[in-house]
């Protein structure tokens, strides 16, 4: 069985094999370029995020997929849901803007809170940080798809499963001609 799996590869000549590798590379790069293209269009460094916690219930649940935009000309407003990064934390947080101070020169500072949390986010910010500014913002939520993100959550919780799926796909693409 395994032998016949690699028969196709064994019979390939040099160019066919290079093409096989390149077409696998093109599948990966197409996904990458779509992602980078979305980044450019939305202005956000991460245009799609998955909600990982229940802190925004009932607005968003764990596993919801959020679409973000981050246009610099659009002002942040109280009540909007923003995704922001905190220094020293790998994973961005999705919370609602609670208070906002805007200066005439355009700089803003704001405080956020999760709808389902009893206190605001000051405890989550970096040591000594009291306010968020524009540079902390990854994007603002513009739309969502429920439950779709559960797949990514499971994949991240069971890394072995993720690698198994990825390896199977890679082998399939590399081994099969056309």
């Amino acid at each position, binding site marked *: 069985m395994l032998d016949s799996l690699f028969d196709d590869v064994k019979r390939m000549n*040099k160019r066919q094999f290079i093409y096989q590798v390149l077409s696998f590379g093109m599948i990966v790069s197409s996904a990458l370029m779509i992602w980078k293209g979305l980044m450019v269009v939305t202005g956000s*460094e991460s245009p799609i995020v998955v909600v990982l916690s229940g802190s925004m219930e009932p607005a968003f649940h764990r596993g919801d997929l959020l679409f973000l935009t981050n246009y610099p000309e659009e002002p942040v407003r109280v009540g909007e849901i923003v995704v922001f990064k905190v220094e020293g934390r790998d994973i961005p947080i999705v919370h609602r803007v609670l208070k906002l101070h805007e200066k005439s020169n355009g700089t803003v500072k704001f405080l956020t809170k999760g709808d389902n949390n009893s206190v605001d986010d000051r405890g989550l910010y970096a040591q000594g940080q009291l306010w968020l500014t524009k540079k902390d913002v990854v994007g603002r939520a513009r739309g969502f798809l429920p439950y779709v993100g559960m797949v990514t959550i499971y994949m991240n919780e069971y890394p072995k499963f993720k690698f198994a799926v990825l390896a199977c796909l890679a082998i399939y693409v590399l081994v099969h*001609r056309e």
Partner: protein
Amino acid sequence: MTETPEVVKINKWDGAAAKNAIDDAIREVLTGDLKCKESFALIDGRLFLCALAVGVALYALLWDYLYPFPQSKLVLIICVSSYFILMGILTLYTTFKEKGIFVVAKEKVGNNTRVWEASSYVKKHDDKYNLVLVMRDSNGKSREASVNKSFANFIDSNGTIVQNLVLNEITKIYNSLSTEKKEK
């Protein structure tokens, strides 16, 4: 990847595998038994386009890593648009230039260089192997012949390619296309 003729066994119910195996057998006949020299320009062109596209994507990845997003915007725009343009060119190249040609072989006959192009296609869920063999000589004349035969004419019941049957078939077309020329 070996030079010695080996017995090629495939799953005869897998149309794509059967087509690839017969394509390979025909290439072997043209470049081996009929002593033509394979020309790689066509496939190299495709490989070049693919490599360029992957290179552009890798460059964008590297640039975005070195200069995180808002800084890398311009480079990303250029890379993303050129990547999708390259994909378009690649599609045009395979549909209009390659047109399923899997081997181009050159042959010197006197002062004349004859170019043989073999292309093939198989419809989905069909057992008919369609082969088109085109011959062009340096005078600009071209002739073509096509065969539409079931896989069963080239593959035995075990799924083994019968090289002799392929050889006979190709030699027949080869001779008819070659001699036609002399009559004219």
